[in-house]
């Protein structure tokens, strides 16, 4: 909110809450679509997780920006509750670490290569 307050500055008084919410939804959708088109332009289906999957405006904007070639659906449609996905990602990272497999995409994190991520703290 501090970030948003700073950006809005003196315009805050004249902006309607619904316009601010719509702008944030548009930003969320645009950023996701930009990333998808850069990294995986041929994706036929976009699975959306977390709060965004329940945000009608975000889902609608994603679908509109991506066009008819990409199905935009909640992860619930593939059997996983949207709110569980991020926590499961960390279970996956832990599993990946325990198997000593690389868990990073160096193109995303800026690392030089693929690396086993994390550290083990044994109990007892």
């Amino acid at each position, binding site marked *: 909110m501090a970030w948003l307050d700073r950006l809005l500055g003196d315009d805050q008084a004249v902006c309607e809450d619904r316009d601010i919410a719509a702008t944030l939804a548009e930003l969320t959708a645009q950023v996701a679509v930009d990333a998808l088109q850069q990294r995986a332009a041929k994706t036929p289906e976009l699975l959306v997780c977390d709060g965004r999957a329940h945000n009608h405006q975000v889902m609608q904007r994603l679908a509109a920006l991506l066009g008819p070639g990409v199905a935009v659906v909640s992860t619930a449609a593939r059997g*996983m*509750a949207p*709110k*569980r996905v*991020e*926590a*499961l*990602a*960390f*279970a*996956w*990272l*832990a*599993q*990946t*670490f*325990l*198997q000593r*497999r690389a*868990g*990073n995409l160096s193109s995303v*994190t*800026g*690392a*030089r290569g693929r*690396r086993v*991520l*994390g*550290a*083990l*703290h*044994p*109990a*007892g």
Partner: protein
Amino acid sequence: MSGTSLDGVNAVLATARAADTHSALNDLAFVHQPFNAELRAELRAELLALNTPGINEIHRAALAANAVARAYAQPVQQLLLQAGVAASAVTALGAQEQTVRHRPLEFDETGYTVQLINSDAAVARTTRLALGPPVARSTLQS
């Protein structure tokens, strides 16, 4: 894990079909534990403050790491109770750290990353029920 928004902790209990293969995870139980407003404001302000140089950072970072570990303890206990699973049956607790400095490839290209959680405290606090699982610290940034 809690993530950068610090609105609470999401914890999931999952099984893998085999430990030695790249198998899919199945989620058995899920808990969302919201932070109370005071803890959230305090931890958030301190983690943000630790992003920039300040006084007595080592001590303050250690206390913040303790706070992150404490925040994970209750949801993990709740998750195990909810699923009826003993801590001894858990292979590992994958805990997300909170990033306060991330400087990859700088300083002679060695770089560094500082991410906070007191993993030993996390083990101690989440293993009261039975024998403890190891904590595998996992992070998306490396």
